[in-house]
């Protein structure tokens, strides 16, 4: 899952960045509104934007409005200190999917992120089930025939991206984008390696190869 963090405060930014990376999200961090615009235009593949409103150069609300104006449907979680009801309404009406007030709790932020990602994937139920496999994105528990299977962080990242949108085919390049943020080095066959590892642990049914296109998880 690849996130764009838009936060002008260095102290908040570095903590949230580390936290999200520890949760195995691939995160890019920009510190002003214009950089946010640039990042969003360059990479159409963000799964979620965590947006502060009081930004230098271009206000967060403007970033949000221009996103929605060009039909960018990426979920946006607004995290701001602007707390009046009118400001919250303005944020949601400008196209935000959710609104958290600073100071917020890390666990709550993560839960809201998961909820938004789930809803963006068109699912309401938090647990994905396919035949003999259940996947819980919150606890990262994966059960195959009732026994727990443990995955590496990268394997989990690939699986999470695929499970987020069952039935949708993701190309290798798209999966790489979900896995790595700007700072990471990408090895050429990394995705194949992780897919191979996942198939060994979960069986070959779950992740299907669409030759010449990419990979998908079938709809439950």
């Amino acid at each position, binding site marked *: 899952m690849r996130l764009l963090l838009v936060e002008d*405060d*260095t*102290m*908040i930014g*570095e*903590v*949230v960045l*580390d*936290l999200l990376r*520890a949760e195995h999200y691939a995160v890019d961090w920009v510190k*002003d509104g214009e950089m946010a615009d640039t990042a969003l235009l360059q990479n159409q593949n963000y799964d979620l934007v965590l947006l502060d409103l*009081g930004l*230098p*150069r271009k206000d967060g609300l403007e970033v949000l409005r221009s996103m929605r104006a060009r039909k960018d449907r990426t979920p946006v979680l607004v995290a*701001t*200190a*602007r*707390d*009046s009801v009118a*400001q919250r309404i303005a944020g949601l009406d400008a196209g935000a999917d959710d609104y958290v*007030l*600073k*100071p*917020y*709790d*890390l666990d709550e932020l993560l839960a809201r992120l998961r909820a938004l990602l789930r809803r963006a994937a068109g699912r309401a139920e938090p647990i994905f089930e396919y035949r003999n496999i259940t996947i819980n994105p919150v606890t990262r528990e994966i059960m195959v025939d009732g026994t727990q299977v443990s995955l590496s962080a990268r394997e989990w990242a690939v699986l999470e991206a695929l499970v987020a949108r069952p039935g949708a085919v993701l190309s290798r390049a798209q999966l790489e984008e979900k896995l790595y943020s700007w700072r990471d080095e990408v090895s050429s066959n990394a995705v194949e390696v992780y897919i191979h590892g996942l198939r060994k642990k979960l069986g070959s049914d779950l992740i299907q190869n669409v030759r010449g296109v990419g990979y998908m998880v079938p709809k439950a």
Partner: protein
Amino acid sequence: MKMTHSLRGRLLWFLLAAITIAAVAQATIAYRTALHDADQIFDYHMQQMALSLRSSTPLSNDEARARQEAESAGGNDDMVVQMWSPDGAQMFHSVSRARLPQRAVLGFSNVRANSTTYRVFSIQTSNQTVQVAQDLAVRRNMAGNLALRTLGPIAVMMPILMLVVWWVVSGSLQPVARVRSQVASRQADDLSPVSDTGLPDEVRPLVQELNLLFGRVRTAFEAQQNFVADAAHELRTPLAALRLQAQSLDRADTPEARQVAVSRLTAGIDRATRLVEQLLILARQEATAAEGTAAKTRPVDLADLARRTAADLAGVAAAKGVDLGLQQADPASVDGQPDALQILLRNLVDNAVKYTPGGGTVDISVLSGAGTVAVQVEDSGPGIPPDERERVFDRFYRVAGSEAAGSGLGLAIIKAIAERHGAVLTLGSSERLGGLMATVTFKTPVQTAA
């Protein structure tokens, strides 16, 4: 009468009073003129009658009565005629209840008898005395009737005039009523200007002043709202950072991660502390300014202050690789509060160092001129765009894109202190260093008696 404050009511009352006074005056003048005319006419009439009765031979009673009746035919003039023979015997007196005293004042005279006043004309011939008299009440009645008749048109005109005035005044006041209802029906926070179209010239300046006031209140209101919004953001952000830093410390599972988290938390606490300190300084400065009490001032040596500030901040500047120095130090002294001026200069220099990238220069100058003393801080930083130079004084305002983490209160504090010392803070561009040039200019009182 209760004094009315209604423009319309007052106009109507004054109009009524004016018309009444005019009517009374007119009636009085008409009465007097009529009385005067009547006097002349009746006097002439009496004279003519007397002369016609004066014949060379004494008339018999019947003749005299016939003559008198002929004279006064057609008018009930209440003429009384008496005639005496030279020996004093009454030869004739007309049919009248009035009996005049026998007097022989020749010509015209006023005689009081029988509780009325008579106008009497007497004429004497060799064989008789003729006296013609008339009750003055007749003349007064006639004059009174004439005067009353002149009041008639006024009595008719008065209600019409009042109606017209009522109508004109109501029409003219219509726009005023409209403005009133516009103002009355608006929300408490609606400070948009009221339309002044159609207003009478006498009222328009009032509404225009009202609109100007609305404008000023709106500006103040917006500044306040901006401040509240900015304050919410600026006070919450350090707290949000602290909370996140504490939580990340809680999650750190390796000694290295814990160390990073602790140093971040410490930095967060330092920032929150600095913010609180700056807020307190600003609040104290503004409170002192609001009290208006002339706090104890004493001469402060600005050059010495600049030297001390440069020394204080040399460490910070060196750590950042900024060359901080005293460019010029004219001997200059102002009356002021040493602590406040220290804070002012410290904030100015601190800002300059903060916003100047490593390798840059910050220069402090104390300049003494005619009647003014100035402290100038120049830097080689990015400066402030001219269109933002007003806003930077707002509390919590920070120039977009500035990298440095400040409280956003520094310039507000500097301005508060400068204003309290009657000094002016101006921001410009430094030609020498290319960055911002902040100048605080103090007026030094002209020393009349040194």
